[in-house]
């Protein structure tokens, strides 16, 4: 998949940043995006980098979960900024929701496939909460109701 095809701004969170709990670079960028929301609308993609050799999924790595939890609390406007054209399997929203919602059950690995259950309650709260922050920006910048609705539906397709 070539991310350039989507006209994206890709932000990379490196393993080193996660391990040292360093938010300097990414947070500064996100704040500047928040100051110019229209420029970055549906443009951001975040990639967590450095765990390719780790057998665990990102949502199973506690320092990744903690890092993203911190980042999400600091900047909960993903529903507005994250690019929704990327396939669900590569979307940062998928990474985020799986890392932020409580893991209820992880089944055994059977031929490379695992059954994983996340807290439904947490997923519900995540969705409602983040829609609130998306609406805050879209209302401030007078996006038409139709666009808000269209985007909401796209988000729901990814996160549910």
């Amino acid at each position, binding site marked *: 998949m070539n991310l350039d095809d989507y006209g994206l701004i890709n932000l990379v969170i490196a393993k080193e940043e996660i391990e040292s709990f360093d*938010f*300097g670079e990414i*947070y500064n960028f996100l704040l500047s995006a928040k100051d110019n929301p229209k420029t970055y609308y549906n443009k951001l993609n975040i990639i967590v980098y450095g765990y390719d050799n780790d057998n665990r999924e990102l949502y199973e790595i506690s320092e990744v979960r903690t890092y993203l939890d911190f980042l999400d*609390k*600091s900047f*909960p406007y993903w529903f507005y900024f994250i690019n929704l054209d990327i396939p669900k399997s590569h979307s940062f929203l998928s990474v985020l929701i799986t890392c932020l919602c409580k893991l209820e059950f992880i089944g055994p690995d059977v031929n490379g496939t695992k059954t994983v259950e996340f807290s439904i309650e947490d997923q519900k709260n995540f969705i409602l909460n983040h829609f609130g922050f998306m609406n805050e920006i879209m209302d401030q910048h007078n996006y038409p109701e139709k666009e808000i609705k269209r985007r909401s539906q796209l988000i729901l397709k990814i996160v549910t």
Partner: protein
Amino acid sequence: MTPYQKINFSIFSKVIYNAWPEKVFNRLLNIENVKSFYNASYKDFEKQLHSELNKYHPASWILEAYKQIELWTVIYYEIKTDQISGSIQLAPIGRYGWRYVIEVSIERLNTNFSFSSLKPTEESMNNVLTILAGMYISSEYSNYLHFLDKRLQSAQLVFSPRLFMGDPLLSESEKLFFNRIKDSISSETDWTGVEHVSPNNDLTKNKVNELLINNFSISIDEIHLIITSIINGISSITNASITVQPLDDFVDLINIISRLSKEKIISFINLAFLNYKNPQYQSRDFLRKSQQIRMLHFAGVLLTLENNYNSIYDDYSAKRPDVLSAQHHIIISPTLLAEWLDMFIIKLVLGQRTDLKQIESLKKPIADIESFYRINIFESEVKKIMEGFNFKCFNLKKVNGKDIDCGEIDIIGFSTKLNAIYIVECKALSPIIDARSLGQVVNDHYIQKKYHAKFLKKIKWIKDNLDVVKLLFQERFNIAIPSDVLINPFFVTVTDSTLDIIEDSYNIFTFYGFKNYISNELR
């Protein structure tokens, strides 16, 4: 040369994450929750500080901390030098925080301790500064919210890695109030032209000199002589601004250079050096304000060290026979000693040396100096200001030989031109330098010493007994006070008390603000 000043923001972020309530998403409402967050942060920082300090030898920490205080002091006072630079914003944190490190480390040095390495690394020094900054910030905001709770009700926090870099969110009006408080705290008294009223004026200095001679067998001039002896006899030769030396060697050397007796020098060391073996020393609980033996009150450190001499000496000196045979060692800098002498006088005069007041033989002489300054210098100056504007003034304690029931009124003054009686309460409060000292002043004003309630009682007494007051003016100055006279109460302080922003039921001024006020009124 710069002090260690690289803030490790990862430490801040971890503390924010740990202290943030689990069930709250990203906005912390309610002043109590905000205060709890800062308190939890403080505890987390403190835990990290101890863990960092435990990695290295406490004597190394004492020396490294002392060096940092020296550097931050140069920056704090903006002493012009090409050699030292650093962030002036971090200077108060550096000066206060590294003193705290000395206090913790001297205590650790005198217990059973272990350590992984002798001397802290650069990374560790920066981490400690970060932690000290975090402790300072958390405790400042916690104190502001505690002491000004009724005026900062709108306080909220929004989760962010920069949370410790700014104020809590406040409503517009509370923000305005808070900014005024902070401006007031950071304002410094300009003593130019009013040096005679400053706590270290020549008259009070003489009194302190007497106290030093009578109780410590040393005069202020002799202390100056010690300072110059260190500068000329040690620092200029070693080319080092901080002297680390076996105690006996130091005493011998100063004795030779200054020709002061060894007894005098030892007595001075007992007064000006933080020493765990000092009889007044108490093991401390840093959260209790009653613990008064703080590095803040001392210029140097006297420590006991019988091994690991490399923790404070270079490799060559650590092998010297005089070092190897010494039990006690001193760390001193002439810069910090000179600052200490100034602060010693000011703190003594303003009643801040409660540690010395615990010594039986010093109780009375210190109380005498405090009241001398309060009455003979400060109150007298306020009275002079009023008389300079043709007020007729007197102090009122008794009427018809009996104490008045509202307590002594410092100054009652009448101005014919203004047709007003001024009721003046003079208070030589300690200067406010941070949220904690603001808290102390607010607490004394309203709760502990009840200055507010007492002053209101005095105002009421004057109003209820106006006929008596009129008679007193008639008797003393042959003035007939008209029936439509105005009664204006004033609470006058030496330095900016910040109380004027908090209290509006009467005027609160510094003595120089009071002078300007009267001048404007008469214009």
